[in-house]
């Protein structure tokens, strides 16, 4: 479960996977994201 969420965010960092992040944020499941 957390490895999946880490994987989704890793996809976003690489320029893909935004759709899943939007879905998780919209559902109130993903509360914060940050990238240094």
């Amino acid at each position, binding site marked *: 479960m957390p490895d999946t969420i*880490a994987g989704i965010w890793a996809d976003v960092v690489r320029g893909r996977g935004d759709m899943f992040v939007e879905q998780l944020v919209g559902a109130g499941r993903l*509360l914060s994201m940050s990238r240094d």
Partner: protein
Amino acid sequence: MICAAGVRLVVRAGHANSWAYARWVAALGVIDESSPEVGGDRVAYTMALVVVDDLDQDDVRQALTATLNRKRPLHWEGEGTVVKRRVVDMLCELAITAHVCAAIVHRSDQQGARMLLLREQILERAGRADAGQLLIEQRSRAEDDSDRREVRDWFRTSSHRFRGI
């Protein structure tokens, strides 16, 4: 609801007698990472914290077991779009919340990035969610010991409750 002492009172809506069902709860924090290459010698060292209230742990475990009942363990990067959609749909239905952070670092500095993200992002989020019981994906013994030291040291100097790792 968060009370002055920092303890959360959870009242489940829809329960026959919600107030009678109210319980003081804490949570479990589950931590894992991903470190895909992003070009050159750099990786996106990514850590995720998933918080599950103690009250919801059994339901979440059952839902995961039912959905991920397969011979081959799920590995996000290797899955196709259909499976990814199904997993994300499931995550949206579960009683969980998540925080995720990433740092772009040289591949040789992943351990340093991990400690930094734990200290400055993940543990603070866990503490605020009263997820003082932590479950971290197993790695090598030395790496697990390093994680345990970092977590214990962090909670020792914080005001948040630590329940174990």
